[in-house]
């Protein structure tokens, strides 16, 4: 199995405190990997460090993140800009705050395309329609002309996914992508992510606090607590036969 992203011995500090402690994780290409953990377990930090978007107070003390043979942590920012959004997409937890309220959805999708491609205006417009359709939005033109606050939560999250996949990424990082949605919409978004994974072969790093949800979606699951990955394995294995105390506690709570 080919590996698309290889995190090796990653340690992230805030001052003296370790947020991530020697974390290693590799994502096989075409798979969905879930990361589960409570608040403050370091799962979001892990996702952000892949994109080199850590808050200024945090510092990578050691380790490397290899994506397509290049260490993302050592890459100069122009090269990194080509990878972000283009090869690695990100889905945020709260789509309302992840879209600029002053611009239409279409304008913001267009911005990404304009930054990464040399497509003509009309071609970009067509591509935006196509991408919105592929995330199961019925009338892409109306949605593209809408402002973020005019859409429902589910539609917004679909638009968010459209923004993540518009550059044609090989990997999507979804940080609590469905936590702010109600259960029925959540199920639809999960199915959409599965479909993208199967049809386009996009690998997904799915970060969530809900072990049940993660093990339903992900092929393999990593359980994190206090900056460490304490358990890693097939989703079913972890559900049926948890090894670590924290995983057991998590299952009990669920």
């Amino acid at each position: 199995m080919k590996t698309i992203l290889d995190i090796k011995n990653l340690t992230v500090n805030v001052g003296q405190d370790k947020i991530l402690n020697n974390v290693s994780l590799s994502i096989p290409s075409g798979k969905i990997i879930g990361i589960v953990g409570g608040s403050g377990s370091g799962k979001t930090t892990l996702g952000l460090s892949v994109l080199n978007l850590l808050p200024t107070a945090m510092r990578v003390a050691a380790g490397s993140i290899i994506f397509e043979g290049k260490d993302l942590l050592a890459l100069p920012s122009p090269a990194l800009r080509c990878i972000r959004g283009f090869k690695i997409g990100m889905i945020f937890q709260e789509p309302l705050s992840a879209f600029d309220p002053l611009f239409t959805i279409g304008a913001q999708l267009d911005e990404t395309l304009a930054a990464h491609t040399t497509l003509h205006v009309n071609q970009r417009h067509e591509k935006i329609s196509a991408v919105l359709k592929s995330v199961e939005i019925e009338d892409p033109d109306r949605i593209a002309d809408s402002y973020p606050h005019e859409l429902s939560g589910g539609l917004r999250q679909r638009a968010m996914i459209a923004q993540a996949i518009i550059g044609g990424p090989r990997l999507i990082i979804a940080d609590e992508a469905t936590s702010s949605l109600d259960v029925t919409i959540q199920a639809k978004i999960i199915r959409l992510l599965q479909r993208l994974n199967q049809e386009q072969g996009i690998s997904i790093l799915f970060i969530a606090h809900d072990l049940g949800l993660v093990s339903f979606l992900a092929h393999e699951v990593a359980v994190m607590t206090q900056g460490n990955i304490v358990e890693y394995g097939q989703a079913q294995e972890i559900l049926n036969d948890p090894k670590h105390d924290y995983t057991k506690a998590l299952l009990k709570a669920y």
Partner: protein
Amino acid sequence: MSSQWSMIVSSFSRRKGAVICLWILGALYLLALIAPCISVHRYDDEDRNLSYCPPTTVEFFHNGHLSAPFVYGRHFTFDEFHRRIYVMDKEKRYPVRFFSQGQLIHVQEPGRLYLLGADSRGRDLFSRIVYGGRVSLSIGLLGVFISFSLGLLVGGIAGYFGGWIDAVLMRICEMFMLVPGFYLLLALRSAVPENFNSVQVYVMIVVILALIGWASLARIIRGMALSLKNRDYVAAAKLLGVPDVVIIIRHILPHTVSYSLVAMMLTIPGYILSESGLSLLGLGIQDPVPSWGNLLTEAMAIVPISFAPWILIPGLVIFVTIVCFNVVGDALRDALDPMLVTDRNT
């Protein structure tokens, strides 16, 4: 978005005073724009025989009979204090035509029409006020445009990038802010040659005003940018590979627009006053080119005011303009503040 815009418009138009002020400002700018058409005489067209001639009007009756519009000629005699007394010369009549030769009111030479009286050299005050508006009103707009461009850019860059860039830019701002404005104005003015022509002086005043004004705005915009850059959509744009400059221009600065717009409206009167102050002291626009400030230089002594009070009218025009800008700016602030709108409705 469109509904929000209409909310702002309706909230603004509920303030009758502000709407009236906006119309007054619009009229003043229009007058300045079409000054060559609206003025009766050229701004430097002088007749020293008619020094401080009181206001005159267009006549329609001659010896009790209706006649085509005309103005009487004037000559003067002296009273016991050797002051000029102007009397109508009923023998001399000069026809007045409306909408003729590219002017709203055209008086045949050498007849003169002083709607607001004449100044010491017998130049028409009304025409000079209208021409002066071109300088005084446009200097405010141009100065604010330049200083706000600078302030928004520097503030946006400092707030967005932070770190040493922020520190350096903010120290530069403070250097400009720590000198009291009017003294900085005088110092900068004295740093440039005095034999400038009026166009050069105009450009110089605009540049000086802009240099003084940008720093305080930059600091406020920096503060806004500091909080705006932590929004998720900025992170999202960064993540999607949008260049930093584009992020500042598209995702940071547009969110400061309601503040900037109000600040702009409240800054323009300050610039108009500064220009007037400089010109009043003879450091700004030079005679014979009029500005509202240098028109007032004649009103600096009490004697001319006592027998020609109309030379104070430019001061009244400045006053009205500044009050209007402040009222409009105030109403705009209320209209752009969504919290205040709901307060008023409940």
